[in-house]
């Protein structure tokens, strides 16, 4: 999201494989003038971001180390003759059960030692007997100097081994010496700031096994509709059907809709592709019942909930379609009947709770006007207040839902760019409170005081000024209270740039701090139990902030030990070119 980051795009060779011949000659081959000005706007060098050039040069060198770890062979020639390393302290087991074991470096740092051999051995030793080794660096920070500069990088290595898999996480501070005549910089010193080695036991190497093809494969929609990505669909559908660029049409809801005791699945799709109801079969696969159930909407659809809206004991459907929220009754056998179609433009996530404790479920719909699809611009970027309002729809029975957003106090701070919301009674007074994650600025924590809401995010310490994408509640520390984990953008480019002196130089330190925070990643808030929260995220890139460009993170228990782990699905936009903005 940080704009001034564009690499020297003009110098990059096109990567896409041409399946069709380009038109010969002009005008289709040359860079068009409008793009030229685009590059001027974005080129970090034009904007004075020499640090980015250094970071790129250092990254190219570290990549050679990653390749060495993956493939072995000759040690890469990236080390200076006088290279020294500061290795981590010895490893000790800091966690171990039947599934996972974590060994962490702890204690005082050993003295620096010369030579690249002992340094590389730190890593190759951990990878003895490993197969399918994948090593990747994430480039975190760059600090320019006169003839030397330093960068920070996170090394993540994962590999298979007998009976499971192993992983090395290592956070480095690298000192580089610049060389004359445009030669690549050489590595003078690596200080290993943090280091840990992990392994896991599982039947097929990894704890999570991808059984998607077996589960969905029998339904034609799997190969025909769900296998192609959004880019593929955008290349073959009239965009006016509703296939936006940053397609947030990825909604999913799980509940038993046909009363057979098995959980079923509803999936939302962009315009022109039908929403899907997959009924869970006894053999663990699914049957596509979208059409017979009456829920195969072709309109652009982002999100859905399967909840009992009419109190008859079966799961009804609330689903976003185009600019409406459709409410559909279930006959108990997964046949749905439209009961209401409410105005709800630009809906993102939906959440249900009984906010007035009258025994039925009310609905909250977030709204987001997308600056990625020609429809809006957030202003100001770091604290935008020109978004679309979210709505609370109160269930008055017999499918009458009334917009009570203002009447119940949810019109406070309600013009943000909201992606997600989740209810939880964080203050233990019996009624559901509501946390809303917003892009481009502050989040909301609406405390429910007997049916009327007050935004207490600032007092509670959970405004979390960032690019908020998702929210989950869970007890992270085992004290019986619900803590909060918020999905945000983690941008290593943002981390590098926002700390440079010329970034927003005209602004005050508070604004600069907002921008710096914008790239920091996910946030974990510990519920203190007195109505306030403590940010316990930590600054280490080995910690829970490093959820990358995160969306719908959730608390989940991977190993069944009763402790809530965290999963952070992420990644913004993958194009056919490998260069990243």
């Amino acid at each position, binding site marked *: 999201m940080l*704009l001034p980051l564009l690499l020297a795009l003009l110098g990059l060779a096109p990567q*896409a494989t041409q*399946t069709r011949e380009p038109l010969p000659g002009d*005008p289709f081959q040359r860079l068009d003038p409008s*793009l030229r000005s685009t590059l001027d706007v*974005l080129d970090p060098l034009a904007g004075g971001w020499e640090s980015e050039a250094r970071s790129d040069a250092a990254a190219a060198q570290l990549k050679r180390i990653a390749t060495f770890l993956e493939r072995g062979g000759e040690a890469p020639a990236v080390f200076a003759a006088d290279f020294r390393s500061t290795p981590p302290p010895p490893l000790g087991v800091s966690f171990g059960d*039947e599934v*996972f074991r*974590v060994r962490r470096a702890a204690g005082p740092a050993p003295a620096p030692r010369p030579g690249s051999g002992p340094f590389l051995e730190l890593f190759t030793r951990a990878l003895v007997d490993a197969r399918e080794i994948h090593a990747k660096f994430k480039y975190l920070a760059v600090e320019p100097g006169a003839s030397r500069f330093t960068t920070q990088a996170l090394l993540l290595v*994962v590999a298979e081994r007998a009976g499971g898999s*192993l*992983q090395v*996480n290592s956070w480095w501070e690298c000192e580089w010496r610049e060389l004359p005549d445009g030669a690549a910089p050489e590595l003078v010193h690596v200080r290993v700031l943090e280091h840990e080695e992990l392994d896991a036991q599982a039947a097929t190497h990894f704890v999570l096994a*991808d*059984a*998607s*093809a*077996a589960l969905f494969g029998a339904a034609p929609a799997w190969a025909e509709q*769900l296998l192609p990505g959004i880019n593929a669909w955008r*290349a*073959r559908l009239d*965009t006016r*059907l509703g*296939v*936006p*660029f940053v397609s947030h049409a*990825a909604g999913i809801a*799980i509940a038993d809709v046909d009363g057979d005791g098995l*959980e079923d699945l509803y*999936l939302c799709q962009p315009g*022109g*592709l039908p929403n899907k109801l997959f009924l869970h079969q006894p053999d663990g696969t699914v049957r596509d019942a*979208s059409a017979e159930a009456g829920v195969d*909407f072709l*309109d652009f659809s982002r999100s859905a909930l399967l*909840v009992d809206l009419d109190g008859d004991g079966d799961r009804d459907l609330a689903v976003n379609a*185009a600019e409406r929220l459709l409410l559909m009754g279930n006959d108990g056998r997964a046949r749905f009947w439209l009961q209401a179609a409410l105005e709800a433009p630009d809906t993102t996530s939906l*959440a249900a709770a*009984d906010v007035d404790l009258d025994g*039925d*479920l009310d609905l*909250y719909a977030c709204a987001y006007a997308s*600056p990625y699809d020609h429809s809006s*611009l957030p202003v100001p970027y*770091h604290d935008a*207040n020109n978004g679309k309002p979210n709505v609370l729809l109160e269930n008055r029975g*017999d499918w*009458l839902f009334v917009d009570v957003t203002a009447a119940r106090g949810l019109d406070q701070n309600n013009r943000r760019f909201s992606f997600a919301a*989740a209810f939880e009674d964080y203050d233990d007074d019996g*009624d*559901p409170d509501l946390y809303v994650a917003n892009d481009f600025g502050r989040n909301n924590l609406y405390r429910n005081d007997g049916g009327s809401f007050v935004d207490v995010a600032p007092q509670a310490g959970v405004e979390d000024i960032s690019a908020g994408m998702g929210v989950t509640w869970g007890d992270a520390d085992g004290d019986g209270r619900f803590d909060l984990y918020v*999905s945000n953008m983690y941008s290593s480019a943002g981390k590098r740039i926002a700390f440079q002196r010329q970034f927003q130089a005209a602004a005050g330190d508070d604004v600069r701090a907002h921008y710096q925070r914008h790239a920091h990643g996910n946030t974990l808030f510990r519920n203190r139990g007195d109505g306030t929260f403590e940010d316990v995220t930590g600054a280490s890139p080995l910690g829970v902030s490093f959820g990358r460009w995160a969306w719908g993170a959730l608390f989940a228990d991977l*190993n*069944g030990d009763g402790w809530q782990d*965290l*999963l*952070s699905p992420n990644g913004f*936009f*993958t194009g056919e*070119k490998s260069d990243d903005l």
Partner: protein
Amino acid sequence: MSQSPLEPAFEGAAADAYRAAWAALNKLVRRGYSWSGREQNCAFLNLGGSGFANVSGVSGFDFPDDARALALADWDGDGDQDLFLTNRTSPRVRFLRNDQAGTNAHVTLELAGTRTNRDAIGARVELTVREPGGRERRLVRGVRAGEGYLAQSSGRLSVGLGPAGTTLQRVEVRWPGGAREAFEGVQPAGAWRLVEGAGRAAPLALARAKPLPSGAIAPAPVPSAVRVPLVRPVPLPRLTMASADGSALALFGIQPGGTGQGTGRPLLLSLFSTTCAPCALELAELAGRASELERVGLAPLALSVEPLAERERAAAFLEARGWPWPWAVATGETLEVLDALVASLLDTEVRLSLPASFLVDARGALRVLYLGPVTPAQVLADRDLCELGEGALFDSASPFRGRWMFPGLPGDADFLEPRLRARGLEAAATEYGRGRLAVVRTPPADLLQDFGRQSAVAGRLEEAEGFFRRALAADPRHFGALFDLAVLLHRQERISAAAELYGKALALDPEHADARFNLALARLQLGDRDFAERELRWLEARGAASAGLLREVLDAPSPPR
């Protein structure tokens, strides 16, 4: 975002730079650049309350997808949490089964409200467990609908309890509102239903299926040719070209009022160059089936993208392919306009490449785009699309069956004019601008419905039915025609058919009280009293005038005739 203005007042140089920066980013990603792409999903292991460790790799969660929503469910009934993940990239959904090899104890709990909401959303369960070593812990889990991003996880709580042999000391539910209730009878390693007020857990039978095979997913094949049927015809602005003898030629154009100016019959416009091998193949194939194409009234036109000076080469190229139809040489502006239209219709910044063909109807409006080679069989199959009305195009433009609820499209002028102007295509933009001055065309479906009503009022019921059906052929989602036809059939005692049409009408406008009343009546006549009573409650809740009438009918001793 170093160019973001700091004040909400959105004007001046800073605002312009900010706007330009967004536009630039949006443009670049539409040219195929990535933006935090290929990022691997992250997983963090809770180290027993003392922080977390990054286990993205060893967990197997680290797919490099553009992942979005995550939802949890114990899909295979083995007690632990499996995952569903949706993506922007291929595959757009993944099922990740939890194959952890440990022997930790699990319990599954399904909560059900009686006084509070049935799904027990907002309830929480507190479990006190004792591990074999004697340590006691308290676990809390909440039931939610809507968490993460665009996601609803299963409401059944699959709770890991700790090492094998861990016992449950106490299970307490706090229902929405705060009332607490302890439950007896919950044992580890099972599934239990906790019903509000019951005080005792009931066993819940969870089917356990054989594990599904797992493995890598083959990527979706990338088609070498793409066919894009348009959801609404786009009139082509005036395209200039040079005919084979070198004289200037202009085709198409937009008339004041927004309609296109066609050639009187459908036309297939195929761009080619003499160096394009797939073009040569495509043109030869089309030429080989000339008589079939002509029989259905299609007029192909080959359009060279090479300079006019090289037209002899183009002529020879076409002759060698046996091209029996006219051909021409496109001007640079014509290519730019076609590129701009394709870019707009696909919302892309990737340049048009060869071969590319355009199926244009008799009135000069683009109906289907073919990017990559097109076969004669495809063109013949698409011929009839040129005759379809706008309402019907929604279905032909969607590659799969399903139901449209609220199809709406931007006007041609709104959609195309700014995009053409941004590229400096002033003439074409101005033509679309004229579309803004369009005389509002009476949609044929409205007109036909009106005719039908007149016929119905005059008692010519058969004629009326014909008009309504024609209106629906022009626009299958025309509420008025659906409703009127339903009433017509209802009066003729064709009750099942009427009920079906009321249903279709209500699918478009569920708040239409008259349609709901009529449907309730029809279903009652068909013997479905429960339905009618449900509808009565709906009408009463909204204070509809017809509620009283429906009550009378329901209270009447025998079903009405």
